[in-house]
């Protein structure tokens, strides 16, 4: 299925989304203000809007993201949020998740980069649609698999 995976630091929450042509990622949640997604590569339709990379799009307030891959190749898109924005964070994650993002330091913080990062994210991508729930967001924050 199409796939979404997040990374974060104390300032930024970035959700990486991957879709193949004809596949859809749906977020089953929304927030009460608009937020940015950036299409880096490929072409998608987002809530009825056709996009081709590189381009930014605003998901509207109270709108659930629905992104379908179009064109011939896999598309990559990032949803961006400010971790220091309480109003936004309280609508996406729990207090535990919010605190973790604001205080977590990876094991490689002194070096600045992981010496042995997990490079198998692409293996998690299988064909089919994908619903990215708040529960998944919470789990990915708790696990911080990018550490």
């Amino acid at each position, binding site marked *: 299925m199409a796939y979404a995976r997040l*990374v974060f*630091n104390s*300032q*930024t929450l*970035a959700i*990486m989304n991957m879709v193949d042509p004809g596949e859809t990622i749906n977020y089953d949640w929304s927030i009460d203000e*608009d*937020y*940015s997604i*950036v299409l*880096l590569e490929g072409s998608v339709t987002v809530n009825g809007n056709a996009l081709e990379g*590189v*381009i*930014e*799009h*605003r998901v509207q307030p109270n709108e659930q993201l629905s992104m379908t891959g179009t064109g011939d190749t896999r598309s*990559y898109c*990032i949803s*961006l*949020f*400010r971790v*220091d*924005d309480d109003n936004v964070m309280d609508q996406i994650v729990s207090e535990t998740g919010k605190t973790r993002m604001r205080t977590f330091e*990876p094991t490689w*913080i002194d*070096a*600045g*980069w*992981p*010496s042995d*990062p997990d*490079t198998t*994210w*692409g293996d998690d991508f299988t064909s089919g649609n994908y619903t990215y729930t708040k529960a998944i967001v919470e789990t990915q924050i708790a696990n911080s698999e*990018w550490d």
Partner: protein
Amino acid sequence: MRKVKTITTQDHLIHIIETDSVDDETTCIPELKLQEQIAVFHLDGSINQFTKNSLNDDWVLEGTVNSPAWTFGKPNVFVGAQTPTSTTTFIVFVPKTKISSAPAPEYVEKADISNIDRESFVEIGAVDTDKKADPVTFDEIKISIDDLVPDDVTFE
């Protein structure tokens, strides 16, 4: 060649950096020193990371980052990077609240970011640069005319 494109989003400035050959230097400006931690996501390829504490020091090869990986640019040291792979892509995320403390290409410094409407999406600018660096010492590799001219071309 290194290609840099900068766009604004609602709350961030994003630098998208791509290179297309081995030994490309990826650092946007010379003597790059960060005041604060900067978040970077490596999408494709690998990067050799170098640091030094002062301008007169030799560069130290700290290690290689292989994509996909989320990294943080180290503050308070000079940083440099070059590519051991034929293609690389990475993205630098700068919250708009931190723009003043984050180094950036010259076209960013000339743009009045603070007056760009939060509701507007703007491509701030783009620049292509051809600069090579040694994978061990980070010394600049001078590109000669011989490197640019194919072997089967002769001048009469």
